[in-house]
């Protein structure tokens, strides 16, 4: 935990190099609160419109669209596959299968049933289950269902990776504050002390980040 905190704090200082000074062994935040800064703010793309365009391009068989889909969702599917398969080599192979399927089945994607992220993650889950089925020791009845425990344990990681993917869409600052709170187990007071951001500002930005995360997940589920 201490190492994590050090790493995160170092990342924060790296993001604001000009707004920290060392003083008596402490690093002090000097940034102006009068001018709210977005730390290396990432473009917040309009969720629905960008996804609609991507789906339309996939359906029109634009090869660049598949590359774009891979850039957007490849990390989430690969993370999901690593978690489900626990085998990097297998995950890499299945990852390729997933995006071949995304390309071939783009016509079947129905936006009314959820966002494209959920669709791609569901394909990844299905292919992971296929792979896990192959691992079931022989002999076995080919009509048998996959053991319930195997299927059940593939549900929860989809939700986790959906949240993880959405975190990547937050601004760097929002993501960092949520990371400090939920991954580093830091209290808001500790975050304030580590970053030099006033406690009230930490709270406000964390609340805003959480609300935005919730909005994005709702949009994905809509």
């Amino acid at each position, binding site marked *: 935990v201490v190492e994590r905190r050090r790493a995160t704090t170092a990342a924060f200082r790296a993001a604001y190099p000009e707004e920290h000074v060392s003083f008596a062994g402490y690093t002090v935040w000097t940034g102006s609160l009068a001018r709210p800064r977005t730390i290396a703010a990432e473009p917040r793309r309009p969720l629905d419109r960008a996804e609609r365009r991507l789906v339309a391009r996939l359906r029109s068989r634009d090869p660049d669209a598949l590359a774009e889909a891979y850039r957007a969702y490849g*990390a989430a599917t*690969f993370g999901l596959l690593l978690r489900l398969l626990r085998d990097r080599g297998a995950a890499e192979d299945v990852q390729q299968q997933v995006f071949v399927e995304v390309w071939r089945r783009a016509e079947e994607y129905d936006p009314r049933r959820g966002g494209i992220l959920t669709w791609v993650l569901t394909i990844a889950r299905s292919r992971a289950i296929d792979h896990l089925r192959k691992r079931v020791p022989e002999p076995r009845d080919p009509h048998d269902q996959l053991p319930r425990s195997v299927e059940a344990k593939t549900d929860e990681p989809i939700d986790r990776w959906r949240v993880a993917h959405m975190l990547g869409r937050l601004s760097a600052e929002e993501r960092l504050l949520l990371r400090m709170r939920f991954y580093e187990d830091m209290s808001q007071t500790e975050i304030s002390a580590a970053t030099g951001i006033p406690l009230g500002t930490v709270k406000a930005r964390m609340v805003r980040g959480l609300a935005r995360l919730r909005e994005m997940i709702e949009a994905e589920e809509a």
Partner: protein
Amino acid sequence: VSDRDEISAYVLGDLEPAAAERLRAREAADPGFAAEVAAVRALVAQLGDLGPEEWDPVEPPPLRYAPQPAPRRRSWWRPVTLRPALAVTAAVLLLGVGVAIGALVAGGGGGGGGGGGRVVALAPVGQAPRSADGTADLRDGTMRLSARGLPGNARGDFYEVWMMRSPTDLVSVGSFTVGTDGRATVDMPVTASTARYPIIDVSLEPGDGNPGHSGMSVLRSRPI
């Protein structure tokens, strides 16, 4: 503060006691609000459960699959819809092609003043005044020859325009006369090819009935 922000603050435990109590009461009384609070609580729980692999995702391997673009549909008829910019570009291109074809047709196919729009400078030669000059504008199967500084024609003589390959291989394009101002602008059809006859020559011709070149050139171009 939006309702959603307030719910987030409430779930995170950041509200003042009085505000927290107010939301607690609403949560108990309003099922819709309670559902929203439950959703944010679930999200907070999920965030707390995320591990290092979700917070710091590994880079996925490169995509090895290279899809092929969709084959173009071929049909005998399909509605054409053009964007304005595309339409203008297409119109300009079509106009250019039309002009080029027109020049070729009017020029006898491969002949004529070298296609669409070429202006060739003419410089004085021989006994012509050094101030004399001119241009030959080859366009659409015609030549517009403009000359100035030429001596005015005396009775019976005239200037003749030639397209030459060599002193013995040349064709006549047309003739004109110049008044006392030394200027002339004349349009003449061109049937010869500038590729075959690349030099434009203007000669002073006496009215002796000889159709050949007099040997008295006054203006000439460099090879086109």
